[in-house]
């Protein structure tokens, strides 16, 4: 469960988040929409403690995120899977190694890694690209590898920050379908998007943000409305 209580984030007099209150239940698929600078990405960054909130309380799976010490942050991040618009794959590691890295940081043994990685590569449909480096992959393939990395350790929560922002129509569709499938397996997904088709196709809870505030919360069958 994710819980925000009066969360604010200020950057040099500019309020990125303004007294946000929000509750996301386990297994929900939440799409966050809004114009650039509305605070969508900041909200996700605060969830992984990439940014520290200026005030307010955040709980992720009972962890008090704002109060975490520096050396405890990696443990929070290992509970959450994150997918980014620019993929953020390690350029000098192969697809296999990029995915394996998320398990290595958890201390998973080599035999388990050798077993799990091909399985998740199969889920994202890239078992034949295991030993390719990121620069040898298309944008869609890169994003699927990134999703595989985010999923490999079976996190309860998957954050996707504009995951289709750099993809063509077909890949956008594929990735959206993949995310919906992952959600059906029980993973909570928080997605930010500018893409009307994507949000409408998902058709689940939709939050609209404006100037750091949540201005609309469509609990079911949400549509892309700004």
């Amino acid at each position, binding site marked *: 469960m994710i819980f925000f209580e009066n969360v604010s984030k200020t950057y040099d007099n500019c309020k990125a988040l303004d007294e946000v209150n929000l509750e996301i239940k386990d297994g929900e698929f939440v799409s966050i929409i809004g114009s650039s600078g509305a605070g969508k990405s900041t909200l996700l960054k605060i969830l992984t403690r990439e940014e520290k909130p200026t005030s307010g309380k955040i709980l992720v799976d009972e962890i008090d995120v704002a109060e975490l010490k520096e050396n405890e942050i990696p443990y929070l991040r290992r509970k959450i899977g994150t997918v*980014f618009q620019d993929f*953020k794959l390690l350029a000098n590691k192969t697809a296999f190694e990029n995915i394996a890295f*998320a398990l290595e*940081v958890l201390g998973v*043994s*080599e035999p388990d890694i050798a077993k799990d990685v091909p399985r998740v590569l199969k889920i994202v449909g890239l078992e034949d690209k295991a030993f390719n480096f990121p620069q040898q992959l298309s944008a869609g393939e890169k994003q699927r590898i990134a999703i595989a990395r985010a999923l490999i350790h079976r996190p309860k929560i998957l954050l996707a920050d504009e995951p289709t922002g750099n993809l063509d129509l077909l890949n956008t569709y594929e990735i959206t379908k993949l995310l919906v499938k992952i959600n059906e397996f029980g993973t909570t997904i928080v997605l930010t998007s500018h893409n009307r088709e994507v949000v409408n196709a998902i058709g689940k809870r939709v939050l609209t943000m404006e100037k750091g505030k949540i201005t609309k919360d469509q609990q079911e069958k949400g549509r892309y409305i700004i």
Partner: protein
Amino acid sequence: MKDSTKRIIKSGWTNFRRNSWLSFGTTGVMTLSLLVLIGLIASNASLQGISSSLKEKVDVSAYFKFEATEDQILEIKSQLELMSQVKTIAYISEEQALAIFKERHKSDELIQSALDELGNNPLQASLSIKAKDPNQYVDIVNFLEGTEFNGLIEKVNYYENEKVISKIDSLSKGLNTGGALIALILAIISILIAFNTIRLTIYSQRQEIEIMRLVGASNWQIQGPYIMEGSIYGIIAGLISLAISYPIILLVSPKIHTLVPDLNLFNYFVSYIGQIIGLVIISGIALGIISSIIAIRRYLKK
């Protein structure tokens, strides 16, 4: 723990291999730094050789009157041997002095015939004394002049040599301090260059570091492979610099030997080979590791 150490070593090695151009450049710069270090060892050895061979040429001789008996001279010798400043003493009897003199002038017939005509030995017995340090001759001469046997001593040739001795002393001191100063400056410059190269290498990896942090890697999991990579740079640079310097020393050594006959640079390196290899490789590794730790620290904060 064992698994994670293995992972860090493997990952460090893989990074090294895959960033081949970067690794090549960094290792190259570190090799140059370590070559400077080897050069410093060689020049230090040469300077020490020059300064000690200069010192070696200095001695004082005390010449004894003809009435001094051998026992008395040997008594003075044994008293001198008790002095901490004295390095060696050689007793040259009248006969030995004559033999040496004859040998030295054996081609000069005039001197030979003059000696024959003289009949008896005109040369005095002497003690040839070497001090551990040139500035200690004053103590030795003072001792000789203060002893009860002073009456037996004809002359001590120190006062004639005094100026030369003090010049040699200050020259060899100058060589040592000047050499150390230049060595220090060069060492600092080469350390800074190597450090900066590793800093740039890690700077080029800052995005990777950021990604690792976002995926939940701990500081050690991020830092470990880079430190490992740094030590690989060090080991390889150490080996290359040793391999490069070997033929150079082999080539240069005879030339230095003709300049400073007491110094054989190649033998010097061979006799300290273990220490030199150890020093070069350990300096390389330390340089790699310390530079990596300092360079990566700023990307781990936040």
